[in-house]
């Protein structure tokens, strides 16, 4: 290789490497910073409704109805009912595809409806008993005077 070609190769490698390092380096730093920052979603002491709302934010358009139903432990048929579409032949379709097929003029409506239906189903579910400082772990026997 001639010296001018070697010089050109060195410059190209350093330039391309530098650009890639700069680009991905800044993105890496940003994502790490985002990860270290506290979740803006919900503090642990937030009301239950607020927590559930943040929770349904995890539903994505690539998910299917049975997957979401299992994820949140709600009946799949109830979600199909909320969408007003039959479960048959729709079980394996993603929310995006259901949206495209059944609501082509309303982008994102299936996702919204499913989130609302899951939220409603979670609100209807019986809540587990919550422990408080006043709730004894072992029932205490009433003390009686001798």
């Amino acid at each position, binding site marked *: 290789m001639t010296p001018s070609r*070697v*010089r050109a*190769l*060195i*410059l*190209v*490698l*350093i330039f*391309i*490497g*530098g*650009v*890639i*390092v*700069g*680009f*991905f*380096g800044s*993105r*890496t730093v940003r*994502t*790490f910073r*985002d*990860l270290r920052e506290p979740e803006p979603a919900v503090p642990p002491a937030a009301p239950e409704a607020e927590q559930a709302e943040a929770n349904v934010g*995890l539903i*994505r*358009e*690539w*998910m*299917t109805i049975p*997957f979401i139903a*299992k*994820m949140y432990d709600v009946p799949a048929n109830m979600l199909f009912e909320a969408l007003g579409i039959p479960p048959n032949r729709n079980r*394996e379709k*993603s929310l*995006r*595809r259901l949206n495209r097929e059944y609501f082509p003029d309303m982008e994102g409506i299936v996702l919204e409806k499913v989130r609302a239906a899951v939220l409603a189903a979670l609100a209807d579910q019986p809540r587990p008993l919550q422990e408080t400082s006043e709730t004894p772990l072992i029932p205490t026997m009433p003390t009686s005077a001798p």
Partner: protein
Amino acid sequence: MSEWLLTQVINYGTPTLGAIVFFAALGIPIPATLVVIAVGAFCRQGFLSWPSAGLIALTCVVLGDCLSYGMGRFVREPVLRRFQYSDRWIQAENAFRRWGGTSIFLTRFLITAIATPVNLVAGTSNFPFRRFLLYDISGEAIWIFGYGGLGYLFATQWERVVTILDNVSGLLLGLLILGAGIWLAIRWSRRNRTLKQKVPGA
């Protein structure tokens, strides 16, 4: 593409995962790392069983790597004819024999973008198959169980892990190119200095 793949994984489970990693190992541009991390999260959520998902994925990815290594072996003769068994080719072959193991191992999980070219070069340069298999299985096990483990660990936050790993992988590739440029520059300047000392006035 990645969303469609995720839908197929949740619909058809582990066989889809196997197919995805197999085709990715052949060099087809599929976001396989994303799927592996997502599958880790699905295992945590109870949709898939992690031992079977891990074993099937590992088997399929190693099969894909072996096939691309085999393709490299298959084109060895035409490539050798093209380069006419030149000294440079022999030098490159020796260099790969020396550093090939490390590059096979590292490209399985760290710089995955160049994993298939490395497989092809390994096959073309006649890198011993048993050694290839050893480095390949070790590296892919880290990829499958390490990355899948991250998905398992972070569960619902697996998408964030994907973003970080994508960026780190790109950063490493950039550092590699930059390092190669700097190394070449140092070598070139040293060579020039030696030449100048040997030939005064040059």
